């Protein structure tokens, strides 16, 4: 039951982008192609999960026992940055062709905000490991969900003539706003 609540809450009620405002930049910037955003969602899921596990361990088995919880920010960002890069190196080393295919498929995974934010939130909520991971996955799905839907809308908007001054950021923000408005309907489900 806790898991279900965590999942529904993260995907719908407190959607990471639409109500928590994490990862807004890639949401607004990258998501104009459905296939790309799907790829991005997959990659983010992996990165978020791994990052959450690592930061969980870091927090609970190093920072807290040593009494230096305040070092969270510094420690987390370094670990996450190193981690993401390591995945890349390993992938490249392990299977260059796979790595190349991903290079064509995905633009950058610039989701610092979301990854660090979720790691911090998971720690803040004081969830046990398993729940932290579920929390991370659910948020990643929530991110992907918002991203893909939004990319769909923007692909469709590519075909219509948006008034000139509205093009670009303004219309993206308005669309996101209406999406957030619609998502408020989930309020109170958990």
């Amino acid at each position, binding site marked *: 039951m806790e898991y279900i609540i965590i999942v529904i809450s993260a995907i719908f009620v407190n959607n990471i982008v639409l109500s928590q405002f994490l990862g807004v930049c890639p949401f607004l910037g990258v998501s104009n192609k459905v296939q790309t955003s799907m790829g991005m969602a997959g990659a983010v899921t992996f990165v978020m999960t791994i990052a959450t596990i690592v930061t969980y361990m870091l927090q609970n088995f190093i920072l807290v026992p040593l009494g230096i919880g305040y070092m969270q920010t510094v420690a987390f960002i370094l670990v996450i940055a190193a981690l993401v890069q390591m995945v890349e190196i390993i992938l490249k080393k392990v299977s260059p062709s796979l790595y190349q295919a991903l290079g064509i498929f995905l633009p950058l995974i610039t989701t610092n905000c979301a990854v660090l934010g979720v790691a911090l939130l998971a720690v803040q909520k004081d969830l046990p490991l398993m729940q932290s991971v579920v929390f991370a996955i659910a948020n990643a799905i929530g991110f992907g969900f918002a991203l893909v839907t939004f990319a769909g809308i923007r692909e469709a908007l590519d075909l*219509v003539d948006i008034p000139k001054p509205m093009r670009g950021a303004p219309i993206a923000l308005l669309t996101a706003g209406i999406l957030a408005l619609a998502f408020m309907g989930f309020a109170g489900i958990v």
Partner: protein
Amino acid sequence: MNKLLAVSPSPHVHSGESVNKLMFNVVLALLPALAVSIYYFGLGAFVVTAIAVVSCLAFEFLIQKYLLKVTPSISDGSALVTGLLLAFNLPSNLPWWIIVIGALVAIGIGKMSFGGLGNNPFNPALVGRVFLLISFPVQMTSWPLPIESRAHYMDALTGATPLALVKEGLKGGQTMSAISEHIPNNMQLLMGSMGGSLGEIAAIALLIGFAWLLFKKVITWHIPVSIFVTIFAFTGILWLIDPAHNADPFFHLLTGGVMLGAIFMATDYVTSPMNPKGMWIFGIGIGALTVIIRVWGAYPEGVSFAILIMNAFVPLINTLVKPKRFGEEVKKNG
């Protein structure tokens, strides 16, 4: 010959159908519901509708003329429909300035920002309505009592909608049988004798409008029927599992905005899928989300949210679900 012959690519004949006619037929189809509403809510229904319609038309005109600098096209009737439907989604005692804000949001944000008719991904009237619902929860959830408050606009006596009564009751630990004493019976629900947004109450009038729209081929049956079926099945299952704590499926179909939403708002061309398969997915989504919000969410009613959320999926549905093509099946072998 003194006049020049016209030259154009084929075809050289046209069905004679026009956007204006379609919209006009929607307006006609809405009239029975408006009549019922004026019967139950009297002055308020009339005033709210008038304000909503006039301000939608006015905003469309002003924005097109002065901001977008294009020739205004209010005569196509779409703003009129938006105005009517916005009004239909409001309580009949809503202060005028809130209605005007709603119209501004509906037309300005919901429609014109995207380039006007045909371009908006979300249903404008619902964007306006939900915006108001979240912004002015107090005003937007006090419902004038039918008949009793016919002669009043702002100072009407108010009560709750049947859905809100059920939700409150269940949350307060009562069972359905206890609650059902306070709510109208199915016949009353069908005829519209209950509190609610001014256009949503009379299921029967809305169904007459449905028949008209089908007859005039303005819409197809797929979306409304898929919504009805889904809601009926979903709530039916819940009801069968635990009749004490779940309202029966007829109650769910006849209350709140289901009829209005399914027949008039989910079918808005611009914001719904383009082919029957897609329409089924769309309708099932709306039905399921409606029930989820009604049963588990904070809001007693979820049709508006459900439609808006599914609106967001329409582009995806349209790219993923294609109409059946001539000759496509055979191709696989060949």
